[in-house]
């Protein structure tokens, strides 16, 4: 089966420093794929390159049959990829409802958008309570949910999530991962960056380990857990 997202030999650089040095990976339709790796390995750079915020120097990115390498972010959103960035980037001075509408900017048809908002409010009850509030007044966890909901408003074929658990309380992290699992059940394809490998093991079907701008491991959760080196580095030596 042809993958939904296919990244080939991607090189992205900041000036002279190459943050990605030839990354290749594939994301299967309907799966959750997880990127592991230490800080500064290039995971966020990869996410930014796929989402169009950074322009890759070499290599290609395909979504289905379409080549989206180096396209502008709004074109990539229209093509069907939505990124939930690490720092969430909600519109702090706009209401929750307006944030959601902004997420649907590429779509036409007001009635359908409103019914999508209605559905998301059922999934994220906290957002319904705060619908008229400015996003800046939300807690960190609520902002994360809003960022996910805003990304879903574009009805993406592929959802990119960059460290959704970062800086959140354990209970909130649990809720976020419950939502990720739910989205997966509904058939959403997700590419996830996560430092917490234990959490990721619960939801992801495929793993990539990125180190120093290159893919150093690719495999199933089982293969990941068996790899001694990875176990020690990412699961702790006293792994289950």
């Amino acid at each position, binding site marked *: 089966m042809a993958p939904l997202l296919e990244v080939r030999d991607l090189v992205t650089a900041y000036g002279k420093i190459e943050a990605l040095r030839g990354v290749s990976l594939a994301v299967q339709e309907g799966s959750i794929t997880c990127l592991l790796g230490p800080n500064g390995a290039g995971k966020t750079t990869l996410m930014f390159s796929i989402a169009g915020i950074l322009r890759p120097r070499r290599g290609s990115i395909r979504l289905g049959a379409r080549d989206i390498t180096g396209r502008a*972010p709004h074109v990539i*959103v229209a093509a069907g990829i939505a*990124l939930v960035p690490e720092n969430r980037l909600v519109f702090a*001075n706009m209401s929750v409802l307006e944030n959601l*509408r902004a997420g649907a*900017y590429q779509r036409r048809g007001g009635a359908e958008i409103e019914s999508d908002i209605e559905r998301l409010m059922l999934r994220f009850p906290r957002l319904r309570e705060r619908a008229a509030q400015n996003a800046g007044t939300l807690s960190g966890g609520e902002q994360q949910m809003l960022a996910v909901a805003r990304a879903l408003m*574009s009805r993406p074929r592929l959802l990119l999530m960059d460290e959704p658990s970062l800086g959140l309380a354990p209970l909130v992290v649990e809720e976020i991962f419950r939502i990720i699992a739910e989205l997966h059940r509904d058939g959403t394809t997700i590419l996830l960056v996560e430092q917490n490998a234990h959490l990721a093991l619960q939801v992801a079907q495929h793993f990539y380990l990125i180190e120093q701008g290159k893919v150093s491991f690719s495999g199933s959760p089982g293969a990941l857990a068996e790899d001694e080196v990875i176990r020690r580095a990412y699961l702790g030596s006293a792994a289950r």
Partner: protein
Amino acid sequence: MLLDLLQNTIDGAAAGASYALLAVGFTLIFGVLRRVNLSYGPAVMIGCYAATWLHLNFQSGLIVLALAAVAGTVLAGAYVERLCFAPHRSGSAIAAMVASFALWMQFEELATLVLPRHVYAFPLLHEGAPVEFLGLSLRPDALAVLGVAAILCALLQGLLHRTRFGLAVRATIENPHAASLAGIDPGRIFVLIFALASAIGGIAGFLIVATHGQVTPMLGMWATLKGLLAMMLGGLGSLRGAIVGALVLGQIEAHSQWFLGPQWRDLVAYLLLFALLAANPSWMTRWTISRSAS
């Protein structure tokens, strides 16, 4: 005495209304671009010169002149945007400002090339004496300026808060990167906002010259300074602030002119602004904390 105060307040409100339009245009451009456009006033001046040229050569009616002023300002604004702001979108804010200053020189030169006299008469919105009412003299054209400014501000408010385009503009103002992740093309918003701000500036310019009855190349500098001043007085952060700042500026000018004399009028406004900025009240820093202009 009370009557004089009231009269000053009315005169100040009329002046403030025209400043409000200039300040709103400035605020829109600064809001989305975070760049100072020194050529904003000179572009307005070009629009007014286009209208004056039509008036001199074809004796066109006021409606045509107003349209010409808007069209001229939008064209000049597009020229500024392409040359000064599109190339520096992610680069140096101060390089963009210096470039916009260079275009200012071009605009002044262009105006004096086409119409070389220092001053040209412009048809008035309303000929004839002011209306006397309870001892106050009311100029119908000044009231028209107030009305037009109020309507335009209301329309703009609606545009920004009730439409899809307005949503995209506000998202871009907050964070262009986040906006692009939501599927909005910030580059397109920049261009459209520049055009919209220029159109508002064109209307403001037309109303100003049609109440003053004359056009000079100095209008460019004048409009830039008044627009900047009003925008900053309002606290740099919202359209509402810009409008309030402009009305306050009109009042300061009208009253200081009455109490201290016309030569002190502008000085009072500048010193007040400097003092306000230096005191740096928190309401003036909303936009500048995260991403300063330069």
